[in-house]
């Protein structure tokens, strides 16, 4: 079985430093890794492909993104490819990434299944997998929480809102976007790590992919200015205007904090039970 995995290099959250003076991100010491959803996709691909299968990993990114692909090689990917554009093109829109990935997939042997992370840990729009499926004209399932292969079909479970799940059956080839907690990437063996360190990562540029710069001219947002985030406003307490003056003053002095008070009931059991029911009814519990 042939499976392709799309990886994105994102900043390692442990290395992200916010400059305390300007609130800008300090990129100088930032390290890039594959996000948790992407590594889950890679691990699933390795499991589904089995020892005889082929797993290829693709990444759209600058030369520094080679590290992400080397990581994939180290854990057992059979083939990797980095896709990149000339510096005058700036990649902003998920559609651009998806188009490059689609072109990269179509240039090589078409895989049976494409796995992506459901969303990256930096931008996290979650659009690339769906757009990729659109460019490939394949079915797509996003937010996948379970995968089971059944011949040329795959049974998947998809996460919906409020804890609901949906079971689907998809015919291959298909694009699946998997959730981060689905699987944890295995550790690379030492020989695997050394092999990956020594490997050279092949790169495909626009011309190799049969694309023109104009193909990537999607409408994108452009950054005009970056300003530090405004400090969070703190809500100011206002007293309840229906209360008498001295109570309002007390409320202001105590900043609206009232002490929890209990009430001890006394009397015959039936009377106490009535009081409890009345208490609950007052507050709308019964």
């Amino acid at each position, binding site marked *: 079985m042939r499976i392709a995995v799309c990886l994105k290099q994102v900043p390692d959250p*442990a*290395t992200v430093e916010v400059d*305390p003076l300007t609130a800008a991100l300090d990129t100088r*010491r930032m390290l890039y890794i594959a996000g948790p959803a992407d590594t889950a996709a890679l691990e699933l691909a390795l499991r589904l492909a089995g020892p005889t299968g082929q797993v290829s990993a693709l990444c759209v990114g600058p030369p520094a993104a080679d590290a992400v692909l080397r990581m994939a090689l180290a854990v057992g990917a059979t083939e990797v490819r980095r896709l990149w554009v000339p510096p005058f093109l700036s990649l902003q829109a998920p559609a651009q990434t998806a188009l490059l990935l689609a072109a990269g997939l179509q240039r090589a042997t078409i895989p049976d299944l494409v796995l992506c992370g459901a969303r990256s840990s930096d931008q996290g729009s979650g659009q690339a997998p769906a757009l990729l499926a659109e460019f490939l004209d394949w079915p797509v399932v996003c937010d996948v929480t379970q995968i089971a292969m059944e011949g040329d079909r795959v049974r998947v479970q998809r996460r919906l809102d409020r804890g609901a799940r949906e079971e689907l059956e998809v015919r291959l080839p298909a694009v699946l976007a998997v959730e981060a907690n689905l699987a944890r990437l295995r550790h690379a*063996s*030492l020989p695997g*790590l050394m092999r990956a360190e020594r490997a050279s990562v092949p790169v495909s540029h626009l011309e190799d992919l049969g694309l023109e710069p104009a193909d990537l001219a999607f409408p994108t947002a452009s950054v005009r200015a970056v300003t530090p985030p405004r400090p969070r406003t703190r809500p100011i307490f206002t007293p309840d205007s229906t209360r008498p003056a001295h109570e309002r003053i007390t409320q202001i002095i105590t900043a609206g904090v009232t002490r929890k008070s209990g009430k001890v009931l006394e009397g015959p059991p039936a009377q106490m039970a009535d009081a409890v029911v009345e208490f609950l009814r007052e507050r709308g519990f019964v």
Partner: protein
Amino acid sequence: MALLSKEASLALVQQVHRLIGMKNGVAPHDAPRPRPQRNAPRPGAERFDVIVVGAGPAGSAAALVAARAGLKVLLLERGEYPGAKNVSGAAFYGSAILHDLIPNWWEQAPVERYLTRRVLAFMTAETSVAIDFRTTRFAEPPYNGFSILRPKFDRWFADQAVAAGAFLLNAAVVDEVLWEDDQVVGVRVRRDEGDLRADVVIACDGANSFLAKNAGLQREFHAHEMSLGVKEVLALDEAIIRERFHLHDNDGLAIEYIGAITEEVSGGGFLYTNRDSLSLGVIGQISSLAEHKRRPYELLETFKRHPAVAPLVRGGRVREYSAHIIPEAGWNMLPKLYTGGMLVAGDAAALCFVAGLYLEGINYAIQSGIAAGETAVAAHQERDFSARSLARYVERLRARHVITDFANYRHAPALVNSPRLQNLYPEIIAAGAEQVFRVNGGPKRKLLPIALEALRRAQVSPVHVLQDALQAGRSFGW
């Protein structure tokens, strides 16, 4: 990343306390330890000429020297990149040494400022008396020292080793050394199929070296031989740093503090200027921290509030906070530096020079790394990796004045950590200086009576003073 939260550093302190055992702050090191089991490498392990464990200054220097000689060198680093596990700000006084290895290294390396001003300050709670040394001669190549940020510097230095042909492998933790017939023949990395073979293993895995202990070259340490340093990097505008510390463009300064800043705990403080930040911290002897039940970060806060320090750090915003163990006892902590197939260098060999006037380590790390690299190269030329062949490492260290420095100053650590030198003498100096400078209508007194009165008031017997003077003379004078 070399960044610890306060909680994490607290956990580190607690762990250190537990490790050393709070009983008199002394480690139960004298009990004979069972010899660790010696494993041989599994067949099929990849072979290198030299494996260097730890890509700090010592490791990168060793790898660079060995790779330049054409050996097949593997440099193993446990962090995600060299320097990732490091405590950031540092003063590096080995410019000329590195210049021999990489000519004009400062032109390409990430350095912060060249240090032209050194200050040694004696402190009491309210007073500070300082010796302020400044020379433009340290502002000329090859310079004398630089303030550096270790994550950047270590990464650059390891890249030089890689450029020379060494193979750098990050995220590789070494679990043990591997043996064949009393000869070290490789290491085991904590990964599947993690065995690696090498003719020479050079352990540069830092203070409290796991490898040196695993190979039986180093004993367990006394708590009074180790110090815990806590350090902060404070962001401050470049222009403010220049104004505040009276610096020209890229001049820098290093201040060492002795006295009350660590309260009753033995130790000291330091402050270095970086390009747009300050590195400052306190160092406390672990046994003394345990004895007085003080937390190092409390000392750091006290230090920052001191009237002589507070105006220097005003407005700085904490960018990093970290803690590190420092081997302090010098000569008395040096391990056996070699065995068949293995050499120990840098902090792993406790080559950290802490002697009041001096607070140096990176220069000795690089010196010993070079010596270890050269020894490995010579051993390969003769195809002899026995302990006898590698013993020439010690001669090389002597030729580079590493061993001799530690031997000459072997009395200094005990003196520097003595309670009188830690707190009493700074107090006497400060009180004396106050007497000299105070004008209150009383008679002007000469220096000797002032000194004698200060000593009398502090209830120090002249015998002790004489003893200390002799000790100081023996440590620093002759």
